[in-house]
C-alpha cells in the first residue's frame, strides 16, 4: 500500500511537471532560471536594480540597452550568444558575478535566451561575426617594450595609470553609460576580468567594453601593436 501511495504521488508530481514543461520555450524556461539565480542583482526587469544592487560595486549590468562589455563582436555591437555564455559560465573576476559553470548547458542557453528579451536590440539586430584574432607573435622582451610604447601612445595610463594599477589621473572621474562610477582595472593584482589568456586581452583592446569609457582600439593600433600591448599588460601582472 505505501508503494502504491508513493507511486500515485510520483505520478501526480510528474503530471504537474509535465504541465510546467508545456511552457517550453527557451526564454520561458530561462525566466525561471533568471528568477532563481539572477534577479537579486540584475532585477526583475533586467535593469540592474535588484535588491542587492545597492550593495554591489561594480553595480550589476543593466541589460535593457543591449550594451555588454565582454564580447567578440566589434565595438557598439550586441554580443553573440557564445559571448554571453562565456561570461555566465566563467563569471567576472573582482565582481559579484560568480561563475555559473555548475549549471547545465541547457540552463545556460535558456538564461541567455531570457536575458536577450530585456533589450529590443536583440530582436532587431544580428550580431556581427566574432572579430578575427591573428596569431600571437612571440612574447619576449622586445614585444613587451613595444607594448609599453603603445601603452603610452594610446594613453592607457590616463585611466589605468603608468604602472597599470588603475590609478591614472582620469580614474576617479570615470562613469559608465548609466552614470555610475566605474573603476579602471588594476592589471597588477589578481586575475583579469575578461580572462587571463592573451587572446582574451587582445579581444578587449579591439572590441572595447560597451557601456564603459574603455574604447575599441581597432582603428588606432595595428594587430601587431595590439599583441605587443597584450604582452606588456600581462607583464605588469606577472611582476606581482
Amino acid at each position, binding site marked *: 500500500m505505501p508503494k502504491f501511495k508513493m507511486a500515485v504521488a510520483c505520478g501526480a508530481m510528474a503530471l504537474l511537471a509535465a504541465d510546467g514543461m508545456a511552457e517550453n520555450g527557451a526564454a520561458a524556461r530561462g525566466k525561471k532560471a533568471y528568477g*532563481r539565480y539572477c534577479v537579486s542583482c540584475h532585477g526583475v526587469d533586467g535593469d540592474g536594480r535588484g535588491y542587492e544592487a545597492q550593495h554591489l560595486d561594480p553595480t550589476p549590468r543593466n541589460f535593457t540597452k543591449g550594451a555588454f562589455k565582454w564580447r567578440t563582436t566589434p565595438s557598439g555591437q550586441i554580443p553573440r550568444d557564445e559571448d554571453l555564455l562565456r561570461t555566465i559560465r566563467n563569471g567576472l573576476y573582482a565582481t559579484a558575478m560568480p561563475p555559473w559553470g555548475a549549471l547545465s548547458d541547457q540552463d545556460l542557453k535558456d538564461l541567455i535566451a531570457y536575458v536577450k528579451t530585456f533589450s529590443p536590440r536583440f530582436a532587431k539586430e544580428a550580431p556581427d561575426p566574432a572579430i578575427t584574432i591573428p596569431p600571437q607573435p612571440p612574447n619576449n622582451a622586445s614585444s613587451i617594450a613595444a607594448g609599453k610604447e603603445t601603452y603610452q601612445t594610446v594613453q592607457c595610463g590616463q585611466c589605468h595609470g603608468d604602472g597599470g594599477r588603475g590609478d591614472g589621473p582620469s580614474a576617479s572621474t570615470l562613469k559608465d553609460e548609466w552614470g555610475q562610477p566605474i573603476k579602471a582595472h588594476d592589471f597588477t593584482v589578481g586575475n583579469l576580468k575578461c580572462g587571463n589568456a592573451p587572446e582574451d586581452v587582445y579581444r578587449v583592446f579591439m572590441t572595447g567594453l560597451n557601456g564603459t569609457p574603455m574604447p575599441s582600439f581597432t582603428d588606432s593600433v595595428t594587430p601587431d601593436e595590439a599583441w605587443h600591448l597584450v604582452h606588456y599588460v600581462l607583464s605588469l601582472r606577472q611582476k606581482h
Partner: protein
Amino acid sequence: MSQKSRTVLFAVVAAASFWQPPTADAFPAFARKYGVACTTCHESWPKLNDFGRAFRDRGYRMGTGMDDPTDKPPAYWPIAIRATPGYSYTSQNNVETDDGLRTLGTGSFEHPEMDILTGGTLSSKASFLAVIAGFGAEGTAQIESAWVRLDAIGGNPWFNLRVGKHELDQPRSSHRPLTFTQDYLIYVHRPVEDQSLLQFNLADNQLGVELSGHDDGSRTRYAVSFADANGAPGSKSLFSSPLLYGHVTRRFQPFSSGALKQVKLGAFGTVGWAPTRFATSGGEPIEGSGTSNKTYNRVGGDLSLWLGPMSTPLAITLVVAHAREAEDFYGGTADAKWTGGYLQAEFTPRIDLTFFGRYDWIRHGQQPLEELSKNFGDRDAVTAGLRYTFSYSSRSDVAWHVEFTNHRTKLVGPDGLDLTTKQFFTGIDFAF
C-alpha cells in the same frame, strides 16, 4: 528481552525519534557575503542545487576573487541561525493499556531547537564549518560539526582534505532534509537496536578526516572518509576500529533535449571495525579495552533524475543499499543482513514552492537472533508534504512547512502485531 519490553522500548524510541528538528545546513551568512538569494544555491532550501553543490565543494567559494575574509569588511562575521517552531501531532496504534490495545495520539507545539552555524573561508587555501545544534527543552546543545578543510591542495580541486567532525558524503544529506518527521531509514536502521553493541549510523557526523575531489562544476566527485566511528564503544584508537566510507558520483545530461534534463549516478559504501569484547565499569565499556574486532558494512547505489527546467525541476532520487553487521555485535547466531532504501520525489513548480514525498523501506534478509522471524522489524514509511518559502532574500529565509508521515514496523508490537506511527507536523522554518 521479552517481546513486551521490546515493544515498549521500540515505542519509546519511535516516539522520540519522530519529530526531529532539522539540523544545520541552510546558511544565510553565505548569501549575505555574496549578495545572492537563497535560491541561488538551494533548489528548495535546505536542499542544494548544482550551483550550491559546486560552491560547497570549492570550499564555500564563488571564485570571483572576493572569497577570502580579507576581501570583506572587517565587521563581516559568517554566522547564521536556524529554528523551526511548529505543531506536531503523533499517533500510534497497539499501545498497551489496562483496557487493552488502543491507538493513542498526542499533539503539542514542540519546544523548538536551534542551530547556530558559522563557516566559510579562512584563506585562499582553507575553509571551515562549525555547527552547534540543540538548545531544546533540555537546554543542551552539542557540536554537530566542527571541521577545517584544506582546499584544492596544490591548486588541484581533486585533493581537498577535511579534518574534524564532519558529515559523511551521503547520497542525500541527512542534514539537509526536506522531511522533518522521518529519518532516512537506510541511514539509521539497525535490527533490535537495543541489543546491538554498535551505535554507528550513516546519518551521524563522524570524527576523522575526509579526502574529496571534484571536477569543474562538481559533475564528477568523490569523497573518502577515514573516521573514528562514534558507534564503536570500547575502541582503542582510530586505527584499531576505524570506519572507512566512500562515495563517488557522476552527474551528466543524457540528452540534448527532452524532459529528462540531468542524471546523477553514484555508488557508496562503508566498512567499519568495532570491538565486541571489552572490560566494563558499571556495565559500561571502558574506552581502550576493546578487543575481538568485527566488521559491519553498507554498500549501495544512488540514482537521481531531474525532469523539467533545472530551476524548477521534478527531482527523483532512488537509493538502495545492503547492510551487514557481524553476529557478535548482537550476541547472535548469524550476521544481521538487511536491504533498504528510499525513493524520494521533489517537485518545485515555482522557486518558492516545493512538494515532496518519500517512501522508505527496510527488509531483513537475515536476523541476528534465532527467535526473530525474518521480517521482524521490516519497515515502510511514507512521507509527503509541501514547503512554501514566503520570504527569502540574501539576509534571511522564512518557509511554511507541512508534512505527514505514516511509518509501519512489522511484528514489533504486542503479541507480534505491527506498530504504525503517524505524524503530522506544520511549522515555520526560518534561517537568518
